[in-house]
């Protein structure tokens, strides 16, 4: 492996988000998207954020990436304040964000080109990583000719190529079918374990969060804040079979109930518990129309 691919020492890649708040100015005054959210990722740890849609989990991730400036609190990586996007934090987007005008290899080399590495060392690094992700046969293809799963694999490889301290993923497998998603999850954990990199993973899929993570943060409905932090004590390496183990199901049930409460709030809280629990109305033999 070339220099740039060398695994960072495990002392690097600590992410701290302290009392993070973000609000948008509107005509009715400031509108809070996230308030007082504090999370951290230890060096080499795999951490997920789950929450109902619109809770601000992507906002939190974008702040770590440096796309958003917090209106309150602070975001640091290895003690340094985040100020704009940079190559020390690799990002994988929900939408496939490969450059269509570059080949697979060209996409992976992009970050190294920005680091002004020589063409030969760029190519060597790209080939090594593409081999690791099983993409060697496709290095000269353009993204348009790849399947969704392959595109996202290239996206992950591209983000890892610069040797970032942290890998940020924003619902990267949301657009993939269930089978491909499971394979992608295994590829991701595999690469994470080899490279010993910190990962912050945003998803709305509870199974995915549990299967992948060391710890899971659960966020509340908007304005989002951290509702709970759950450690996932499942052994590594994780196997697909674990997803039906009692331990997994218990974790799932716990997280599910946390999220469900918030999802109902996120939908405006208009759905009564009765409807959610699916209890039947006792109409005493009358029809609903008679009662009304």
């Amino acid at each position, binding site marked *: 492996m070339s220099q740039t691919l060398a695994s960072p020492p495990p002392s690097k890649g600590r992410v701290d988000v302290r009392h993070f708040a973000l609000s948008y100015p509107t005509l009715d005054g400031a509108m809070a998207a996230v308030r007082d959210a504090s999370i951290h990722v230890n060096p080499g740890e795999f951490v997920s954020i789950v929450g109902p849609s619109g809770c601000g989990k992507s906002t939190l991730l974008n702040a770590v990436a440096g796309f958003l400036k917090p209106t309150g609190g602070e975001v640091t990586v290895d003690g340094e304040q985040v100020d704009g996007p940079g190559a020390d934090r690799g990002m994988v987007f929900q939408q496939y964000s490969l450059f269509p*005008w570059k080949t697979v290899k060209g996409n992976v080399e992009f*970050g190294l080109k920005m680091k002004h590495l020589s063409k030969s060392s760029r190519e060597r690094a790209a080939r090594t990583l593409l081999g690791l992700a099983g993409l060697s046969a496709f290095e000269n293809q353009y993204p348009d000719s790849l399947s969704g799963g392959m595109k996202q694999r290239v996206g992950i490889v591209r983000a890892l190529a610069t040797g970032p301290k942290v890998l940020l993923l924003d619902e990267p497998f949301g657009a993939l079918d269930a089978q491909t998603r499971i394979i992608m999850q295994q590829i991701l954990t595999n690469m994470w374990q080899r490279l010993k990199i910190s990962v912050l993973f945003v998803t709305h899929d509870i199974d995915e969060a549990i299967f992948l993570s060391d710890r899971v943060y659960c966020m509340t409905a908007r304005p989002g804040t951290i509702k709970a932090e759950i450690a996932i004590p499942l052994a590594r390496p994780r196997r697909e079979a674990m997803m039906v183990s009692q331990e997994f199901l218990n974790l799932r049930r716990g997280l599910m109930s946390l999220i469900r409460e918030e999802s109902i709030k996120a939908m405006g809280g208009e759905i009564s518990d009765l409807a959610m629990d699916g209890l039947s109305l006792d109409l005493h033999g009358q029809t609903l129309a008679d009662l009304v």
Partner: protein
Amino acid sequence: MDSFALRSDAKVADVKAADGKAAPAEPTGPLSAASVEAAPMTTARRWLRLNRGGLQAVAVGALALALFLLAWHLLTTYRVVFFVRFTNVPSPAAVYESLLRASHDTKFLMHVLLSCRRIALGFSIAAIIAVPLGLVMGRFRLVHEFLFPLTEVLRPIPAIAWVPMAIMLWPTNEQSIVFITFLGAFFPILVNTLHGMSLVDPVLVRAAQCLGARETSIFREVYFPASLPHIFTGLTIGMGVAWVSLIAAEMISGQFGIGYFTWEAYSLVQYPDIALGMICIGVLGLGSSALVRGLGRLVMPWKRA
């Protein structure tokens, strides 16, 4: 419609063939069966099979051209008068004769070459100014806000309306004709470049930023290639409008050029030369558009199917 559907069929077949070539190491069931079936076929037959759609399109297009020539021949031979009068219209044979004569005539070739030179100059200058201007206007809001109203006022003025002004502005006739050609090409290129810039996917810009790209790199590596398809649309349209403007300018104020040749033929009552000039303009316009498209395919290899 029909030929289009066939063409897309051929594309699908192409892709399948490419897949087969790309992964010869995995002889899956259906794939190997297909290659066994394909084995006795000669290369020529396989080529024919793959390009059947394209060949059919060529044949259908040639048929239309042949029918057009036949109709032209019949209408002029029988001197048909039916609202429009074909009494003085030259027949295809007469035009062919004058083409044979003109092809040995250095004066005619000079007309053609001079028009081509004017197009090359006017179009190139337009592209060299309009593309970077569009990129900068698309990237920097202030530049856009500053220049956009001005371009919007100037844009609707047809290049031909600039003829009197151009004659006043430029010391020589030649310069004013090139200027008019330039104006014709300039605005389509600018507008399409701007459009391309406005459609650049912000996620790609973010992705580049996350990979350590700074402003100039983002401009060169993201905004420019992302806008290229629209830039080439603009160049193709610009080339067409450049020819329109050039011919008009040559007819009004020129002394040479294929537009002037066509107009002169009318004044000198050499009717076959009118049609010859027109066909010549058509072929030159077609050729220059094909040139731009070919260049586009060359610089955008990712757009090739």
